[in-house]
């Protein structure tokens, strides 16, 4: 399948054969048009006072986000069974976007097309009817026709929209819920051997918005596709075997083809292949075993896609040509002694270059571990990225998202257009480790836990290849990983030597009173160390380059290979006069391999109770307390020059009240949070703090005269204790009809 054309021909031929050979429609006595629908109304309120859209979070350029706003959306699901063999369905759907009630129906507003100079992105519905995101547009979605011809070998052929959830989350994953029918393609599903053998074959039109290097599929997109083929063999319900293959072909017009008389040649921009095998056995209700192995190949054309990245590149795939692997094995012992005690074990390893363009981006959890908590999702203490530069406040808010994280096997993680009460996904690329999860249940009492040891296949120096410059790597670091938790989309760092241990104990007891009061508690501990740069040969400058005592550094670079040095990343500081009146360095010179060390001691405790007050009404209240003592490099690392430093002590409290009420077919729900806490910085020594002048105070929202320091790129890190307070609420009403 050199460029996918053969695959297309075969699939189209298969489709035509299947459709044309379908028997004439039988009596259509059961033909019925069904229209069902859902209306969903959301009310966001929060003390950040953002009102860019009716979603809590996005990083998509040009889109708004907000913790305030009210909006409604409607979807009508139309479905018709034309005959026993043919079913048609589609949706007509509006979206929240910036369709806020305050738009008064989406009229008027500024018109970006007439603005000179441009007044910026449309946010908060200010473009009214001049922007489809605020003029209450209705979008046609999810059109598909399903053929069920009744052949012994073909169960169904689906032409059109699909969420492709029938494959495998680490190869072709289910498309996120809000886009669940945005992807389209051909899907054939069949079986043989009395349904013991089943197969799925697909051609998915490659989403041009994100399914390629640099979140793009290039200029010529119409023929880009992902092909998938999957077999499952289930000889009995006690054993199953599977094999899967994926081929992604992103092509471009061949610019060197000068003879247009015979058509125009194409050439690959990005190609990706994944092959996998898996098994599962259930020899006894007390024992379940499964295992899976995948191997991937990815190749980007260096002239059509990013040939490499600097120290902070963004892309959903690695650059260049790479092979990757993913291994996973699970063993479950389900109350083997009949005493209520069960165990789950999981071992896994995902290599740095494992690449599957269509792997699940969120809403699927590929690992047993609960991973990191979503309360700390970005590098800054307040969950801001690039917060040292003005104009980069937190988006998701100090409280982050709720709960724990889904792990996904892709760099292409997606938490866009979510609210704070939704789950967060984090990349597990590069992770390897072992999880043991015991569970105990007896009468009204449940106890479960987890111990996970994480090592990393991305533990390397100089991106694993010190024959290249430090700002020339195939790996997109995507903001880099600093801060208390795991930055959800960062898989790589230039230097890493990291281990993580996660311990969790969950307890739940139901008090027999009324309908039963659920009391639940949790304790979680994360201990993590990362020595990052751990070899003196990678230090940026020669020993003694900065003599101290207010004397300028000599700037004699230390080359780790040829002329390559890390001095461009960790440049020397100038000498300044600090707030103390002494002359010294603006930040600590990076002259020790301990300057970037990370040491995290993290504890989380929660206690809550829930009660079913009536058959219609359930309410719960939870208090979560987070405490983190973090050393995350000193001012020599300074959050890779990009982020607010997080070294110090973090204390965070989340008080969460939830309620849900069902009334006559409508569901109403509410989540209220009061989040508050402190951050006491400890950025080490070896530099001279300065005070914020009026300009710095205004741009960085700190008091005039407060202490801090300016980093290499001019960002400001405050040395003052920070006190956070945040309240937010999401209420919703859902009616399905």
């Amino acid at each position, binding site marked *: 399948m050199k460029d996918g054309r053969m695959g297309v021909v075969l699939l189209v031929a298969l489709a035509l054969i299947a459709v044309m050979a379908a028997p004439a429609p039988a009596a259509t*006595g*059961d033909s*019925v*048009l*069904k*229209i*069902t629908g859902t209306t969903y109304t*959301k009310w966001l309120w929060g003390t950040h006072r953002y009102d860019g859209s009716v979603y809590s979070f996005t990083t998509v350029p040009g889109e708004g986000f907000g913790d305030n706003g009210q909006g409604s959306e409607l979807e009508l699901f139309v479905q018709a*069974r034309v005959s*026993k063999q043919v079913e048609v369905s589609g949706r007509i759907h509006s979206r929240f976007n910036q369709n806020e009630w305050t738009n008064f129906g989406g009229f008027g507003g500024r018109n970006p097309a007439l603005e000179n100079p441009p007044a910026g992105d449309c946010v908060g519905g200010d473009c009214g009817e001049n922007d489809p995101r605020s003029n209450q547009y209705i979008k046609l979605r999810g059109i598909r026709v*399903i053929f069920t011809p009744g052949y012994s070998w073909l169960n169904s052929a689906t032409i059109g929209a699909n969420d492709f*959830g*029938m494959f495998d989350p680490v190869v072709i994953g*289910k498309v996120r*819920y*809000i886009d669940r029918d945005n992807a389209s393609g051909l899907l054939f599903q069949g079986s043989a051997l009395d*349904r013991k053998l089943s197969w799925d074959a697909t051609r998915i039109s490659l989403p041009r918005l994100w399914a390629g290097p640099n979140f793009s599929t290039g200029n010529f997109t119409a023929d880009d596709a992902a092909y998938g083929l999957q077999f499952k063999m*289930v000889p009995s*319900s006690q054993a199953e075997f599977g094999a899967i293959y994926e081929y992604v072909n992103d092509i471009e017009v061949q610019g060197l083809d000068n003879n247009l008389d015979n058509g125009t040649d194409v050439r690959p921009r990005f190609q990706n292949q994944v092959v996998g095998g898996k098994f599962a056995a*259930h020899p006894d*209700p*007390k024992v*379940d075993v499964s295992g899976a192995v995948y191997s991937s190949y990815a190749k980007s054309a260096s002239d059509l896609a990013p040939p490499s990245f600097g120290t902070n590149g963004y892309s959903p795939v690695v650059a260049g040509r790479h092979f990757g692997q993913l291994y996973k094995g699970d063993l*479950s012992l*389900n*109350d083997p002694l*009949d*005493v*209520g*005690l069960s165990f789950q074990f999981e071992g896994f390893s995902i290599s740095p270059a494992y690449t599957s363009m269509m792997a699940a981006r969120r*809403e*699927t*959890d590929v690992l047993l571990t609960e991973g990191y908590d979503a309360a700390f999702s970005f590098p800054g203490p307040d969950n801001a990225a690039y917060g040292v530069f003005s104009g980069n406040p937190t988006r998701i808010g100090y409280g982050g998202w709720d*709960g724990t994280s889904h792990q996904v096997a892709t760099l292409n993680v997606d938490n866009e257009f979510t*609210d704070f009460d*939704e789950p967060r996904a984090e990349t597990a690329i590069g992770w390897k480790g072992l999880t043991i999860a*015991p569970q*105990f*249940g*007896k*009468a*009204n009492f*449940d106890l479960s*836990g987890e*111990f996970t040891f994480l090592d990393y296949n991305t533990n390397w120096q100089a991106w694993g290849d010190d024959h290249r410059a430090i700002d020339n790597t195939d790996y997109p670091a995507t903001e880099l990983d600093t801060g208390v938790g795991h930055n959800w989309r960062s898989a790589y760092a230039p230097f890493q030597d990291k281990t993580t*241990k996660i*311990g969790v*104990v969950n307890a739940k007891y139901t008090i027999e009173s009324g309908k*039963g009061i659920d009391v639940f508690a949790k304790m979680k*501990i994360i*201990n993590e160390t990362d020595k990052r740069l751990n070899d003196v040969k990678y230090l940026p400058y020669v020993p003694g380059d900065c003599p101290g005592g207010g004397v300028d550094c000599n700037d004699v670079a230390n080359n780790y290979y040829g002329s390559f040095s890390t001095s461009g990343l960790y440049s020397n500081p100038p000498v300044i006069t600090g707030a103390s009146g002494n002359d010294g360095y603006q930040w600590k010179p990076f002259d020790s391999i301990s300057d970037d060390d990370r040491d995290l*001691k993290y504890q989380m405790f929660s206690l809550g109770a829930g009660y079913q007050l009536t*058959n219609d009404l359930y309410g719960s209240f939870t208090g979560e307390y987070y405490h983190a003592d973090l050393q995350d490099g000193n001012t020599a690392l300074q959050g890779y020059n990009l982020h607010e430093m997080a070294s110090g002590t973090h204390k965070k409290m989340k008080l969460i009240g939830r309620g849900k009420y*069902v009334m*006559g*077919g409508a569901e109403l729900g509410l989540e209220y949070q009061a989040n508050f806490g402190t951050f006491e910085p400890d950025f080490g020594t070896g530099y001279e703090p300065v005070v914020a002048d009026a300009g710095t105070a205004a741009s960085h929202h700190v008091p005039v005269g407060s202490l801090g320091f300016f980093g290499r790129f001019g960002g400001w890190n405050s040395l003052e204790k920070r006190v956070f307070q945040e309240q937010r609420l999401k209420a919703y009403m*859902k*009616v*399905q*009809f």
Partner: protein
Amino acid sequence: MRRAAIVPLLALAFTLVAGLSPPRAHAAPAAIFTLDDPRGDDHGDGTLVYPLRDDLAPGDLDLLSLSARAEKDGTTFEATFARPIRVPGREPIDAGGTALDRVARFGFYTFNLDLYVDTDRVAGSGARAMLPGRKAEVDSTCAWERAICVTPRPYEALEALGDMRFKAAKDSLEASAARVDSEDLAALRKKIDAEIDSTVFFPTRVRVVGSRIRFFVPNAFLGGPARDSWCYVAAVSGADVGRRFDLGSTVLGSSDFARGLMIVPVAPGQSHERFGGGRENDDLMPPLVDVLIARDARQEDALRDYDRRAGRPVRLRGAVPAEAATAR
């Protein structure tokens, strides 16, 4: 908290709970009965096929056994399925991002397990109709006094059952009475709720362990611990965790949503939303995937034995564990 504390901490917690008490205290009490069901019969009458959705596959609803153990103040039933029970995760199920595990918060979401219990063992005494949407009856020899419905959203199911029965009774009352006052309706609702409370139980003490699900039924409902001399019919169906107000029945024609109690229906062909393999123009084909019935009855035959013209639904004969044990 030192890092070395993690492992001992976990070990300590589990040791305290699982290890400190004498082993006898943890040993499960002897089973009152165990009823077995053939493996691989999760196909209803033999023609039913699973929906095309990705989170439901053959074996998931294949009931292998049902057992009961006496506990303090009640009976814990245990149903074993052929494959591990799918546990709801935090994946969103609507446009607002509502997580599945907040809707189905009892640890499962793909099936309903109904258990109809004839406690008086008097033929013809008790109810025959199964819960709404099952499209089946229990044979009069095993007419039930108590029904237990293990469903992912028990409180909502209880409420929905009350609504359905109230609507039917109200329609009947309005058709027969000269005038219906609000007091009449309030009394009717109260009567129906009391009737449901005494005859239908939706367990909320539910625990999923691999391919097994355990649920507790109090003595107050069953009148004592379960007995092996009682007659049981168990029926497994697909669960629809959504709750949809039905416009279809009044505006656009028939709809299955309102007629079934959180059950995935069956339809001709194959579909993502329904079980496939249904017969055309057939309203009586039960959407029951697996049933545990009398030992000498064949499931496929039993689920096929209905009369569309006469409006006679399937009638399932129950299993009496004590008799089954004797027969062995």
